[in-house]
């Protein structure tokens, strides 16, 4: 959303800070943490006052998107002859008047740099300066509520601990009989959901029901169409959906194909280190940003197929059927609302199944089996989040030099291994391949507007000194634990348990393996 857009007048000290004040109000409205607001205010106020002090006029624009605040302050002014010099503490060209008022200490830009996660300055002497900075709104849990789509239903948990080992990023804990998903580690792959026998880990609510309306265009993944058994080809389901009264139905397969072609071209263009990794699966992108940040340059800069549809389709209203948590999260990073625009696979199934049973398959349209196009380079398709992680380790170690394109999927088989799919995933994949409906000429790949960014890990404490002390305690405690990572305590490893104890997620008594309870070294 656009948070603030306004003009700053150079020399207008009386109103200096007004734009920052408006930004503060917006940040409070969305519930940003006080510590984050403070950092935003330091940076915004310094940037705003720089315009007042040095320039004739300037534009202040702030956007809040994807859990991040982006501020751009562009001025028409004298510009900076040397940006690097201006970033040095104590360097200032402020007027005597500004200094009298307490400004011009030469700490503005250094302060901004300290308070922000990313700062870019471009300046042309005699024309002006453009300053852009970003602050992640949740420093300790950037991908907090709403950012991942695995929801915990604690009352269903029977402490079987299967989820602990299934998680590729050690994001799960089961303390005091309740599963907990650590927001900053969860990549939304759905692996825990797949192994959870009681549904204690499930796709986040709320979500919508399949409700046909003449202004709604429905977007469905292949898995949604291929889950109805041997007698119901995907085209039949598609026809049925269209007959229910939607404005249209889009199948994501064509956008997957468009992305495949774009990634192939990107790899051939020599723009990036090989192998180029396709961003087809949002969970895998999250995995790279969380566990394999060194591979970020390998990611092709495109949106996932669902996001591409969201960004380019000129429909009145789009409603998405999602097969997995990562799709839900990726879609919600925009303006869609879960209770209106997101339908889980099972809701589509329950709404369509009765119609498929009632009506004869007489009116089935012809469908074609597409020719598999093997345009080189041949992508390496890898599926299953642990298999993907294993391959990424090989790539990091330069052990896959012969691969030029990787197409990774968190689920297995690719695109059909959703934990929400009621049919056998391999059968569903086969039935899709055997009778794929015609493609969609509107499909296109879309360049990603922002860059991929490594996810910051957990901040142990807002205060650096306290964080260092906590780190020391975690370290000492971890060494006093058995070290065989048995997982009986509800944490995946002994090191994870040590962190949990120091951060108060559980107590020292959680370790059941030591006859003498672990003692924290003094």
């Amino acid at each position, binding site marked *: 959303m656009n948070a603030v857009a306004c003009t700053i007048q150079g020399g207008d000290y009386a109103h200096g*800070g007004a734009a920052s004040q408006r930004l503060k109000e917006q940040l409070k409205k969305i519930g940003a943490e006080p510590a984050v607001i403070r950092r935003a205010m330091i940076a915004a106020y310094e940037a705003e006052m720089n315009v007042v002090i040095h320039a004739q006029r300037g534009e202040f624009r702030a956007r809040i998107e994807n859990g991040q605040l982006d501020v751009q302050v562009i001025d028409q002014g004298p510009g900076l002859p040397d940006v690097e010099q201006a970033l040095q503490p104590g360097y200032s060209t402020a007027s005597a008047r500004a200094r009298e008022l307490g*400004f011009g*200490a030469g*700490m503005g830009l250094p302060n901004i740099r300290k308070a922000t996660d990313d700062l870019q300055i471009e300046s042309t002497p005699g024309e002006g300066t453009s300053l852009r900075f970003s602050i992640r709104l949740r420093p300790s849990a950037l991908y907090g509520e709403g950012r991942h789509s695995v929801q915990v239903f604690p009352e269903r948990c029977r402490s079987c601990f299967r989820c602990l080992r299934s998680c590729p990023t050690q994001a799960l804990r089961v303390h005091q009989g309740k599963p907990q998903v650590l927001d900053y580690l969860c990549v939304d792959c759905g692996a825990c959901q797949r192994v959870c026998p009681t549904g204690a880990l499930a796709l986040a609510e709320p979500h919508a029901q399949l409700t046909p309306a003449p202004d709604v265009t429905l977007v469905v993944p292949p898995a949604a169409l291929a889950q109805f058994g041997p007698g119901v080809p995907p085209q039949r389901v598609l026809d049925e959906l269209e007959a229910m009264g939607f404005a249209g139905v889009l199948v994501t397969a064509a956008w997957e194909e468009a992305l495949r072609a774009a990634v192939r071209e990107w790899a051939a263009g020599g723009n990036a280190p090989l192998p180029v990794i396709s961003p087809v699966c949002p969970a895998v992108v999250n995995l790279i940003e969380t566990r394999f940040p060194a591979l970020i340059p390998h990611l092709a800069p495109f949106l996932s197929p669902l996001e591409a549809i969201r960004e380019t389709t000129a429909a009145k209203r789009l409603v998405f059927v999602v097969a997995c948590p990562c799709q839900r999260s990726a879609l919600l990073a925009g303006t869609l609302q879960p209770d209106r625009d997101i339908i889980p696979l099972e809701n589509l199934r329950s709404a369509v199944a009765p119609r498929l049973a009632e009506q004869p398959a007489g009116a089935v349209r012809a469908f074609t089996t597409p020719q598999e196009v093997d345009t080189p380079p041949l992508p390496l398709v890898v599926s299953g989040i642990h298999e993907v992680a294993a391959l990424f380790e090989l790539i990091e170690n330069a052990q896959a030099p012969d691969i030029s394109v990787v197409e990774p999927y968190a689920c297995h088989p690719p695109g059909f291994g959703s934990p929400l799919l009621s049919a056998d995933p391999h059968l569903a994949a086969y039935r899709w391949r055997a009778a794929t409906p015609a493609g969609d000429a509107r499909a296109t790949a879309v360049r990603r507007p922002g860059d991929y960014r490594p996810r910051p890990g957990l901040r142990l404490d807002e205060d650096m000194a306290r964080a260092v002390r906590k780190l020391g305690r975690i370290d000492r405690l971890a060494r006093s634990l058995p070290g065989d990572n048995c997982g009986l305590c509800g944490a995946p490893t002994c090191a994870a348990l040590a962190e949990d104890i120091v951060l108060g997620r559980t107590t020292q008594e959680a370790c059941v393996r030591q006859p003498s309870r672990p003692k924290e070294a003094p």
Partner: protein
Amino acid sequence: MTLEQLADSIGAAVQTPGTGTGIDVDQVYAGDRISDLLNAAGDHALLVSNLAGGHLTRVAELMDIPGICLVQGQTPDADMTAAARGHGTLLMVSPVGLFETCGRIYRALSQREAGQG
């Protein structure tokens, strides 16, 4: 020690009462450079400064600082008083200079602590 008690014990006159009545001061920052004060600011802080302009109240407003203490018996300008009143920042004026004011604050806070301990 609350801002009001502190003002009383250092002989400062409260110009505008704050909305944060009863906030315990646990940080005091003195300085005449906006950038320094901005960086130091916290929601239990008192800023002590020579700067009697509206910018100090703006900083207080942006950073949720509950109190400002001007020194040397300066009269805050009308803008500053209005801004402080509007935002509910407690504005006090100490009759002595920055250094002496800080000394008095230090004494007041440490006596208080000694009294508690």
